[in-house]
Each structure stands twice: as structure tokens, then as C-alpha cells.
């Protein structure tokens, strides 16, 4: 299987005002096939930058990322992406959005229709196929974005705050959905989030990033994702171990934020 390997990854942006921003500095990690990684960190520490490099939208200024044996040089179907705000094509219907990738490949319409129906069923939107996407709620749009990404069968799924804009209830349901899909498909998933709870719950592994320059600060291996597949997520959240870890990470991020404030 293909592991994701980041080697000495650096990203420096030239800013209009003349200075430079070290969005990433010497980031090294390996993500094994089938692992579920969540990334946490204060705002502006380079999470999106990291994801964009892995997706191939941006080239790093230093180092490289490998998926399997191949260096990532541009966007590709083997890495699916889910954005914070759906990024659906509003001029298409739900099913047209979902089978966008298949159509680009020129898949037989009959076959793709079947797949679309299956995926709509999985994300709980069976029967919504002919509705224009702009008529759907935010949570529904996010599920379509998930289906649109998964139908292409990517090796690696990248999610940038996919649940950030949702209400608490929808969010919990979506978290369970992500876990279910992870377990059933065995995909490698990398998910960025701002919520410590979500990071703990969804992350088999968890990176805490630190800003200025953006780097990996601490890494955790967590049991909660595995448990979440079978247990009720709410029970997990109330368990002592969960609360302890949560407080530890929160303090860590608080300290970082304070450090930033002090610098300014």
C-alpha cells in the first residue's frame, strides 16, 4: 500500500509588504496507509498550507511529499479533497455534482448512475439526486462534497475543516459518518479541525502544530477513533481519559496563543 511521507517540508511566502512568512518549516512525518490523522493548531500555523501541498495545489519551497513511491507534483485523482464550504458546483444537481469526477473520466453513465445512488444512500441523501444543490442545507452540502470525493475512490482523503460550518448536532452525526466510512473503506484520511474534541475523537493519530514558523509540535496516538466505530461517541467524550487529554491539549494551544500575543 502507499504511505504518505513528508520530507523536510518548508513553505515560505513572500508577503506584499516585503517580509517573508515561514508557513511551514522542516515538517517530517509518515502517514501509513489506512491511518486516520487529525491536525490541530492555532490559527495561521500552516495547516491549510500543508494540506494544499499534499493535494498538489501548491509546490513547497523546500523538501517534498511522496505518496507511495511517487513524489507529489500536482493535483491528482488519488487524493480527494473536502473543503470547509462544500465548494459544490451550484449550477449542477446533486447527482451531477457527485458524479462529476466520473464524468471527467468518461465513465459509462449507467455504471456511474448506480454508483451515485449507492453513495447518496451511504451519506443519507437517497432520493435527493435531482435537486439543485443550492436548495440544500449546509450539512447536506457537506455530505454531498464527501460523496463527490469518495466516489472517485482516492487513496488519500484530505479534509480542511469539513465540519467547521455545521451546527453541533449535524456535526456529531457527520463525525460518526466519517468514522463509519473510514472503517468500511479503510482509506487514509487526513482531517484538519479547530475543535479539540473533534480532533481527539476522529484522530487515530493527532498532530498539534505550532506557528511561526509552522511546525509539528507534538504527536499523539489515540484510542478514541477505534472505539468510536462501535461505541456511542457521547460516552467516549465523557470518559476520564478523553477529558484529561483534551485539557492537556487545550492548555498547550492556549500557551501557544499567548506566546503569539506576547510577540505582537
Amino acid at each position, binding site marked *: 500500500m502507499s504511505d504518505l511521507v513528508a520530507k523536510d517540508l518548508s513553505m515560505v511566502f513572500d508577503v506584499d509588504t516585503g517580509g517573508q512568512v515561514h508557513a511551514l518549516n522542516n515538517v517530517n512525518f509518515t502517514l501509513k496507509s489506512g491511518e486516520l490523522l487529525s491536525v490541530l493548531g492555532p490559527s495561521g500555523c500552516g495547516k491549510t498550507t500543508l494540506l*494544499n501541498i499534499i*493535494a*498538489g*495545489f501548491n509546490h513547497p519551497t523546500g523538501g517534498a511529499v511522496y505518496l507511495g513511491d511517487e513524489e507529489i507534483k500536482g*493535483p*491528482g*485523482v488519488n*487524493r*480527494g*479533497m473536502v*473543503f470547509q*464550504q462544500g*465548494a*459544490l*458546483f*451550484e*449550477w449542477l444537481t446533486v447527482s451531477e455534482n457527485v458524479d*462529476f*469526477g466520473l464524468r*471527467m*473520466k468518461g465513465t459509462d453513465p449507467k455504471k456511474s448512475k448506480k454508483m451515485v445512488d449507492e453513495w447518496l444512500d451511504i451519506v443519507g441523501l437517497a432520493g435527493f439526486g435531482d435537486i*439543485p*444543490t*443550492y436548495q440544500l442545507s449546509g450539512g447536506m452540502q457537506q455530505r454531498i*462534497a464527501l460523496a*463527490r*470525493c469518495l466516489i*472517485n475512490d*482516492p487513496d488519500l482523503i484530505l479534509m480542511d475543516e469539513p465540519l467547521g460550518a455545521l451546527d453541533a448536532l449535524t456535526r456529531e452525526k457527520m463525525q460518526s459518518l466519517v468514522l463509519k466510512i473510514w472503517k468500511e473503506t479503510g482509506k487514509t484520511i487526513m482531517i484538519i479541525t479547530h475543535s479539540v474534541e473533534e480532533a481527539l475523537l476522529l484522530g487515530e493519530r493527532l498532530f498539534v502544530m505550532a506557528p511561526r514558523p509552522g511546525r509539528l509540535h507534538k504527536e499523539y496516538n489515540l484510542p478514541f477513533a477505534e472505539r468510536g466505530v462501535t461505541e456511542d461517541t457521547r460516552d467516549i467524550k465523557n470518559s476520564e481519559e478523553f477529558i484529561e487529554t483534551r485539557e492537556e491539549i487545550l492548555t498547550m494551544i492556549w500557551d501557544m496563543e499567548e506566546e503569539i500575543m506576547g510577540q505582537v
Partner: protein
Amino acid sequence: MFDFLFEYRGLIVGTIFIALIATVIWAIFYGRNLIRTERTDAVFGNPERALGGWHWVITGVSAILIVWIYFSWDAARAFNPKAANELCQVGKLSSAINPIRSTFPLDDGFLKGTSLLVRENKQLNGLADQVERLGFSDAEKSKAKETIDLMRKAIIGMTSPEFLDSATDAKFKEIVSKIDGLTSKLADQNYPGDPTAEQIAAAEKNPRWGDSGNEIPAAPASPRGYKFDAAAKEMKTIATDFSKIRNNNSNFLAQVEKLKGQIASLDTLVQASPGTDELLVANRADFVKGLTRVLRRVDDGNIFPPDALNNVQSALVNLDKEQKNQQGGLRYYDALMMPGGEIRAGSNSCSEQGSGRWLPKPSDTLRTFARISDPEIGYKGYPLLWYKMKPFGEMVDFIVPDFISSLVPGHYPRHDTNGIVTPNFKSKVRDFATGNFESFKVPMPSGHVWDSLLRVLAGLFFGIILGVPLGLFMGLSRFSKGFFDPLIELYRPVPPLAWAPLILTIFGIGDDGKIFLLFMVAFAIMVISARTGATGTHLSKIHAAHSLGATNRQILRKVILPNSLPEILTGIRIAIGVCWGTLVAAEMLAGTTGIGFVENVARKQSDYEIIWTTIIILGLLGLLFDLMMRWVIDKFIPWRGKG
């Protein structure tokens, strides 16, 4: 077909006018009622408050029509078609009185003699000032001063009552008695007696009000009309007599003779020693000429002693009063129903002044519209909008470019020794491309409106199919943006009409030039809107498409193009509007068909009905286009702004 309607248009307009007023009153009450009964939840500032309100739409439209019907005097004609004819007769009397009237300070200003004196005194003072500055010798100087003094004395000879000739006074008395006589005739019920057969015949021959252009029936046709018409004729002779009266008393004449000698001798004196300064010589000659001119004007004898004309003035005031009295209700009708202007009598016709002149009556405008809509009549021998049977070949010629025959290999046939030409494939292709073949006929739209439409649509079509792709590429590629931007930005800021003279010279005044001009207009708008659309695509959508495996081409066609559609359609909507404006102006500049051409000809002929007809046609077509575009936008991009 609708002649019947136009026959009774007075009645119809009257009914409509009353109905419109009733509608407005009803709508206002309805609206007030609605406000009282309907509890609106929306607070001030919430756009909800602007929803609905169709009764206000009716009120607005009715108000516009009421204003139009009222100020164009259509309502006046509807309720009292005779009024214009009678006011025309009143106008005749007024213009007959005017020469005498203007002598007196009745409406405004000075007595005529007074204002003449003001002027002459000013002239004399000016001349007196000059005497010192003209470098005269002492002899010349004293002679000049003497002359001016004499002139002043001569004027006193006119203004002093003791010198007034008794004959002149008698003439004034005669005028007074004539005016008084006319006043009492006006008051007389039987004046001027029964109309003559000629008068009746003339009245019957009167055109109806508005029958051709702004004509108002001029021959009197009612008892009141006959009275004013007759009074006007009498007044004319009185006015002529009055204008002949001169203040030529013997004292004054003697002074004038003396003055003439004085000026002549001054002239010889001045000419005897002209001096060398050319400017001074010219100025001295002017001085003498000035004196002569004042003398000539004074010699006219239009200045009388200050109170000599008092009786004439009061007689005139009496006539005025009686004249108003005799108009009776007509005066109030004039003030109420014919606002903003009056009916004036010229030498032998009457015309509307003020809003009635340039604001044609709705009913007349409609009739004119109906007339020129008739394809048999049209405008300048060309229908407004109709169809014509045209051979199919003409369409082929229009669509298929002629040069394709040149692309066919081989040569065109050459005639043989018997003078016979055998066509080959190449010449047959040529015949086809130029439409030179026997073909059935198909109906094709034609007419001024169609020509204008076709030009706009053609310009728009080329603007869109060339402008949109270029705009998209300019939004996506550094090269095309940098390369084409200066080209477009160089010609775009120039108002299209500034290009018109040049373009029309290059392409000719036919369709080609206009279409190219419109193409230029539409092209720039389409490029800019397509570029805005392309650059406005959300980055995350592009990223999503990339990671879903779309190629660059696919992203262009499936993501960027649909994403730019709202901007492109808005661009088309704007382009249509601008093209309309440009086209009409271009057609006014040159050409022999089109709505702009019609309006331009009508403008030269001051045919306000046609002008308004074209304005309305243009407005309606513009509205139609806009509604169509709105429908297209609602239908094809309901997702606009919801991404």
C-alpha cells in the same frame, strides 16, 4: 380598418380621460384602505415593504396618461372641439389690436414715446460727451454743441402740448371714436349679422383640429367666432390708421429744416480740414452720422406730448374689457384645459404654442402610428415591420461566404470559339455562393424596425461569439491579458459615436458599417464581463475540480464557463442597451432605413407625432429585450449568487 375609431377619437379620449381620473381616485382610496386594514410586519427599511402594490402601478400609469392627455390638449379637444377654432378668432383680434396696444404701457413697460425719448436722450448725451474728445477746432466744437442744443429744442417741439397740431388731435379723437364704436359693436348681440354664404362654405371646409399635423381650423364657424373675426378685420384698419398719425406740427418741421442745414454745414466744416490721424477722421465722420441718425428718427414724428394719447389708451382698455367679457366661458376653458401655451393667430392660420406644439395628442399619435404601421404606406415608402417574399438564393448569398468558390481547385470556365460558356464545378459553386440560382421564394421580415433589430442582433452576435472566449482567456492567461488589454482599453473608452464617422467612411453607410460599430460596442462589454466572470471563480471550486481529475479544458468548459454565465448574461443585457442607443444615433448620421432614420427625417420636418411614435417604439423594444434577458437569467441561471 380602425378609421371608425379615429372618427370618434374625441369622444373616446374624453371617456378614457374621465375613466383615468376615476381610476386614480379609486386606487388612492384602495391603497389607503389597504394600509388601514393590512397589518404589515415589516419595519421601515425592510425591502418586504416594497412588495406588491399593483394598484400603485395602475395609478402611476394613469397619472402619466392623464398628464399627457391634459398637457397635449387632447382632453380639451375631446370636451370642446370648437374651443380651438374660437380661440383662433380671439387670437386674430388680439394680433390686430397689438400694433396699437404696444404703443401703451398696458401689459408692461413704457409708453412708446417715452422709451423713444429715453433712447434719443442717451444718444445725444453720448454725442455731447464725444465733442471734447474728437480733437475739433474751436469753431467745429461750438458748431457741434449748437447742433446738439438745437436737437434738444426740436424734441421739446414734439413733447410740448402747446405745439400739437389741432389736425393731429382730431385724428386721435377719430381713432377713439372708432375704437369705442368697435367696443359697443362687440357688446351688440347681433354683430356682425348673419354669416355670408362664403363664410359658411369656408367654415365647412375647415380641417378638423389635428387633422394634419398641428393645424387648427382657422375659418370662423360659430356666432362668437364670426363676431371676433369681424372685429379683427375692423381693428386691422383702425390700427393702420393709427400707425399713420405723425406729430408733424409746423414748429417742429421748421426746427428740423434748420437742423438739417446745421448738420450739413458741420459736415463741410469737418471735411475741410480732415487732419492726418485716420482713426480720428473716422470717428468724426461717425459723430456726424450719429447726429443725422438721431435727427432721422426724431423726424419720424412718433413722439407726442405726454398726455395726448390718454383717450386712446382708455378706449383701448375698454375694448380689452369688452373683448374679455365677450369670450365668456371660453377664457376659463382656455386657462383650465389648455395650460402651458396658447393658440396664436398668424397671418392666415392658427397654431398651438407651448406644450401643445411639441407634445402631440395621444390620439393623433396613435393614428399616425396606425397609419405608418400599414405596410402599404409605411414611412418613406418602406414599411415599419412587415414581410417580403425573397428568393431563397438571397439568404444563401447572405450566409455562405463568396470566397469558398475560390478555394475549389481548378479554373473558372472560359468561353469557347462559338461564344458558349460551359459551367464547371468551380463556377457552379460560385453561382451557389452568390445566390445566383433559380429558387423558391420565402417570406422574410422587412421594414425599418426589422432593419434596426437585425443590425443590433448581428453586432451583438459577433460581439458575443468573439468577445466571450477572449474575455475568458484574458481572465486565465497572463499572455492574453497583457497582450489584448491595451488594444481593448485603447478603443473602449472612446464613445462609440466618436468612432461612427470613421467607421461609416471605411465600411460605407450600409449595414456593414453599423454592424461593425455595434460589434465594437458589444465586443468590449462582453470581453470585460467574461473576464470578470472568469477571474471571479472561487478558488476552492477550481481546486475541487482539479482533485476530481478534470483536465484544464474540462475545467474551462465545466467550471469556469458556467461560473461566468451570470456575468456574461448581465454583460449581454448591458450590451443590448448600449447597442440600441448607438444604433439609433448611427442611423441618424447616415443611412436610408431604420428607426433612427425615421426619427431623423421626422425631426427635420418637425413632425412631432412621428418623433414620439419612434420614441415609443424604441422604448417598447428596449423593454421587450430587457424582459427577455430577465426571463433568460431567471430560467437558465437560477443558481446565480447562491454558490
